[in-house]
């Protein structure tokens, strides 16, 4: 087994909602290995985002502990990259200023900042838009900007929370492809949250299926599809149909049984299937 980067040990997380206490995560244990691309799928409200925020140090556990490279996560974890569902580009900075921002706060000299930002802007085809304000960019472009803003400073671990959720099916596939290309070059450890099973399989080495609330780990699957992968042709690649069928059996029971069935889930899997 590869070196463990993130270890969730018997995590339980409870929230107060008004006067009642809700258990979001119930005794969750999970290990993320170095250079692995792991996806977590699960119905809405199963606590997968909470798991990610624990890794970034944005939440505290009720029980158990989160380890990052052997150290207990206590406070903001500046060793990871964190990409949210909304692109969250800073609206008062141009695309270039956004991408340079992490380098700026980390004290990278101006010249190097500029050239590294330009390299990543080119990598995702945003050249010519460096001086645009975020509101002048389309949703897909903003999303690319948000991804390279994290990739540019080279965190060895990247946490991604449904980053392609709000995008249309075509843009989604283009961005999944972009992400795979960056990952194949840099080989960060990626923990990726999604509720789209096709997306999870297309991108990942491992897919973790979570149960409906209170969230627990149902099963972990290795994805045997060879790399490099072609997201646009993922359905034709050897092993896809079998592994999809196997995971779907587990996943389906959770989705159907969950209190809050998610229409997006069905839409996500079938529309991606049409591509």
């Amino acid at each position, binding site marked *: 087994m590869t070196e463990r980067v993130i270890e969730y040990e018997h995590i339980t997380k409870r929230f107060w909602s008004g006067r009642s206490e809700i258990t979001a995560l119930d005794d969750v244990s999970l290990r993320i290995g170095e250079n692995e691309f792991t996806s977590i799928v699960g119905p809405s409200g199963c606590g997968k985002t909470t798991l990610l925020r624990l890794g*970034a*140090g*944005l939440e505290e556990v009720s029980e158990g502990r989160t380890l990052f490279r052997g150290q207990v996560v206590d406070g*903001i*974890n*500046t060793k*990871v*990259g*964190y990409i*949210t569902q*909304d692109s*969250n580009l*800073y*609206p*008062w*900075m*141009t695309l270039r200023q956004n991408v340079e*921002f*992490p380098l*700026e*706060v*980390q004290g990278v000299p101006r010249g190097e900042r500029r050239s590294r930002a330009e390299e990543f802007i080119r990598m*995702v*085809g*945003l050249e010519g*838009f460096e001086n*645009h*304000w*975020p*509101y*002048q*960019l*389309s949703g*897909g*472009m903003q999303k*690319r900007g948000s991804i390279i803003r*994290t990739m540019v*400073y080279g965190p060895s671990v990247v946490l991604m929370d449904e980053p392609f959720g709000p995008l249309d099916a*075509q843009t989604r596939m*283009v961005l999944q*492809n*972009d992400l795979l290309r960056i990952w194949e070059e840099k080989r960060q450890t990626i923990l990726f949250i999604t509720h789209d099973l096709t997306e999870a399989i297309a991108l990942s080495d491992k897919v973790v299926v979570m149960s409906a609330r209170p969230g627990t780990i149902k099963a972990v699957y290795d994805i045997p599809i060879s790399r490099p992968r072609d997201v646009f042709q993922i359905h034709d690649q050897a092993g896809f149909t079998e592994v999809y069928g196997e995971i779907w059996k587990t996943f389906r029971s959770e989705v159907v049984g969950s209190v809050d069935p998610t229409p997006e889930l069905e839409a996500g899997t079938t529309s991606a299937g049409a591509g």
Partner: protein
Amino acid sequence: MTGLGETSTVAPGRAAGRPVGRRRNPVVRERTLVILGQLGIIGALVLAWEFAGRSGAINSRVFSYPSAIIERVFSMLAGEDLHGNTVFEHLLATGHALVVGFAIGAVLGVALGFVLGRSALLARVLEPYLLGIYSIPKIAIAPLFVLLFGIGLESKIAVVVMGVFFMVFFNTFAGVLSVNEEFINIARIMGANGAAVTRRIIVPAALPSILLGLKMGVPFGVIGAIIGEYIAATKGIGWLIIRSTSFFDASGLFAALAFLVVSTWILSQLVALIEARVLRWQPQRRQELVTY
């Protein structure tokens, strides 16, 4: 392959689906109609006022009439002696108190708005006191300032500070409170320290509200300066208004008001211009500049 079907958004305000090159733009036409309508109303009112004042239908010693007022405006511009000072000296006296008071009120308002915006506990502790002070009418508290600071510039400045401070404070506070927490989280994960988060995230995120507060602070500051001059002053536009009233000089009163309105408008436009420049990262800045 990237960039499929991606374009930047089209400049706002341009209506889609119309053939380019046609002269009649519905947006421009509507704006023209609005302006013509507004001019029509003011024109009719001025004409009616002039006629009523000259014919004696209304008491011209109280209401004066437009041509007499315009005459006085020109006479004042030419340096007419108004109880010992020209209109410019009166404007300068008011402006002096306004600028100093505005600066003090704005700095205090921004500072306290920031501190309370980032400390929910302190904000809750101070809330009743701040609301209490805010609810005191400025005209009621102005005499206290006269006792404290005497007749003249200082007490006027104090009333201006009262007016400006609360506008700036409330807006800054609301702006800082509403900063998207995820913006801050992302910056901290990227390694930004407290100073960088404040300077690069919280300040710019709260800037639209701060500038709104400053813009609203201009008329409130003017009101403060005028009230200060009503209560205790030896010159200034507010003092001139009171003086003209006690001398039954209606034309002088209206002319002084005209100077006051125009100066306030210029100040507001200045702040709006600064705002438009500083907030150019926001969509639709230009429209707001026009509607103010």
